[in-house]
């Protein structure tokens, strides 16, 4: 057991940290471009990814032969942490980089690899992921978007939901039903769908927090060629699982830095808001809450490091992702509740600290739902880790 970084891990971190110091745009420090224009904003993010690419920092987990850096799992974690620590702009190509790219590498044809991978890395093409549907959330395999045969290709009709980045995406990793007669896990196919094709519509989905991080995507007689099948026809469930494994292997290393920054801000705020005539930070109840938030976050960091070690050694993603997701999502909800209790009515104001507490409290509520509800995560842990019999 040695929790220090190895010299080569340190070198990786220092190198990337130095690069970020040079390259993170100054105007981003406030968390945005300053511009209200949506198209400009997207171009800005594309340019940022392009810069990472040019610097050799795109696809760091990808094998070198596909233009990646072939980094270790721990280096990937360091990469995410450093991005967050530097308060770098959002990675607009994240779905392509962490989910679609690795799946194409695993299951794509030579042509698909040549056609799509370089543009994912360079940020020239942005991807989104079209899996969930209004009636297929936790029960993903129940999805109903249909692709019917049309000559060599398909015609797609249906609706997807909770699609991040859809409003700026060029392509979509789309899971559709190609055989309605088969059992629900059997007749699915994964397609590489052009988001600019005729018949594709995107509607932003406003959240209770007021912003629109997700979208609905509508497919109305959208034609997709045979060369756009990823994996095999009617074996899309395998492709989807490969993609989801890649998603769940993301242990949330970046998000922890964000949490840490929020907690530091809360500690600082606790010294300026009042409780019983003195700074809240001197109130024993507030202190308990701050300490609990601190220790839970610290344990998240430690759990992550253990999971990284274990994944690095086994090479096989297990249920670590579910454990991490369950932990951080519920932790974050508790912490934001503590923040509200500490800040009192200030925490609800839209103009106190630019509304970050109000926003975070609301946004956090989605954490235990998105990317697999806490209930689904507990089922996975019970069944896959503990070997308990299936509950349904």
């Amino acid at each position, binding site marked *: 057991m040695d929790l220090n970084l190895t010299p080569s891990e340190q070198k990786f971190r220092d190198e990337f940290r130095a690069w970020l110091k040079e390259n993170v745009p100054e105007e981003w420090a406030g968390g945005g471009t300053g511009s209200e224009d949506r198209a400009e904003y997207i171009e800005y993010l594309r340019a940022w990814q392009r810069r990472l690419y040019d610097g050799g920092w795109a696809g760091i987990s990808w094998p070198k032969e596909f233009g990646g850096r072939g980094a270790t799992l721990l280096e990937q974690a360091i990469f995410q942490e450093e991005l967050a620590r530097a308060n770098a702009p959002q990675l607009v190509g994240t779905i392509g980089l962490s989910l679609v790219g690795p799946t194409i590498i695993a299951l794509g044809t030579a042509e698909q690899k040549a056609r799509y991978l370089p543009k994912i890395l360079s940020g020239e093409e942005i991807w989104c992921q079209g899996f969930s549907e209004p009636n297929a959330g*936790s*029960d993903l395999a129940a999805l109903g978007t249909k692709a019917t045969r049309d000559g060599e290709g398909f015609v797609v009709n249906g609706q997807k939901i909770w699609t991040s980045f859809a409003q700026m995406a060029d392509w979509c990793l789309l899971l559709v039903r190609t055989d309605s007669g088969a059992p629900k896990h059997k007749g699915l196919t994964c397609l590489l769908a052009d988001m600019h094709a005729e018949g594709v519509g995107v509607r932003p989905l*406003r959240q209770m927090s007021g912003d629109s991080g997700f979208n609905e995507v509508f497919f109305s007689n959208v034609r997709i060629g045979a060369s756009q099948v990823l994996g095999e026809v009617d074996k899309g469930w395998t492709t989807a699982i490969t993609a989801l494994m890649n998603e769940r292997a993301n242990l949330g290393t970046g998000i922890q830095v964000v949490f840490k920054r929020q907690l530091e801000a809360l500690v600082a705020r606790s010294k300026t808001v009042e409780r019983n*005539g003195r700074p809240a930070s001197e109130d024993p109840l507030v202190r308990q809450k701050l300490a609990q938030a601190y220790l839970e976050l610290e344990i998240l960091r430690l759990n992550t490091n253990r999971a990284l070690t274990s994944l690095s050694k086994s090479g096989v993603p297990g249920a670590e992702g579910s454990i991490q997701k369950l932990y951080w999502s519920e932790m974050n909800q508790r912490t934001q509740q503590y923040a*509200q209790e500490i800040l009192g*009515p200030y925490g609800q104001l839209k103009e106190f600290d630019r509304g970050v507490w*109000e926003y975070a409290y609301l946004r956090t509520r989605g954490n*235990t739902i998105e990317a697999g509800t806490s209930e689904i995560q507990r089922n996975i842990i019970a069944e896959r880790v503990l070997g308990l019999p299936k*509950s349904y």
Partner: protein
Amino acid sequence: MDFDLSKPQKLLKESARALLARECGAGRVRELMETETAHDDSLWRALAEQGWTGLVVPEGAGGLGLGLVEMAAVAEEMGRACLPGAFLSTLFAAALIERAGSEAQRAKYLEPIAAGELKATVALLEESASWDADAVKLEAARDGGGFTVRGRKLFVPDAGVADVIVCVARDGDALALLPIGRGAEGLRVNPMPSMDATRKLYEVVFDGVRAAEGDALGADGDAGGALQRALEVATAVLCAEMVGGMQWVLDTSVEYAKTRQQFGRPIGSFQAVQHMCADMLLMTESARSAAYYAAWALTENDPAARLAVSTAKAYCSDAYREVANRGVQVHGGIGFTWEHDLQLYYKRSKSSETLFGDATYHRERIARLVVD
């Protein structure tokens, strides 16, 4: 002993539900959220026509003179409808005026309040955001037979639409309760946009606002006591309102759990969902017991009333939030959207949690009564 609404109380509650369903559907609530004050004249008139603006105002002052249990029954339905606007603020102010006002002052304010012609609020909180009267620092400086107030109040609900703002100020060791009319010289009201857009909050700036000595309420010297009692009344009514919100969330979530299918079965057949719903029921019913007991105890001037109010508010503050949390979880993604009405209740649960003091605050009050 009969811990149930009487027939007339039940009728009152049913008619409140019907009226609010008609006049204050979710669409209307959303429209009002988007306005500056969340107030709507025609809706207010509808409430007043029912007599609700004067429901607990004594008959002598033009009200119905009913008790707080009746008020709680109506408030529960208001909470169920997520009624926007100044009802609770006006009720708080009226309760304060009733307890601290001279006969003339009561006539002056309570009659138009009962008639629906006057909306009011109480400006209490300051930077400390404390609900303790002891924390009031804003000074009512005495000069020439009157008061001059310079400073500001924060988190004042509905100040943007109130015709009268009762300012709680410090007058030496005592409190001065000064009703300040809208448009008074030196008075400025600035919105403090907050999570729950159905209950607007404001900063109220007193830039040398003057009040005549005779305008001050609580001339009998117990302004502090009157404020305390009025706060208790408003808190009990808020608790009943919270119960109504919880009931809406519970009903809506159970309904969804019965119809939403995943894995070929309604999600309500999964134990995880079942048990969340069972907990929501338990909390909602417990909150209801506590809220109505507080209303009854206040009406009866029961010596345990203060304890009953803090018990109710401490419990309801935690329970509404937890019910709302579970409601969103049962709904999954759709419950987290702007489009779904759950968000209205989710945000109301949060604003109600802190209004008139959160659970921690009321637990400390309980401790003072049962430990010390």
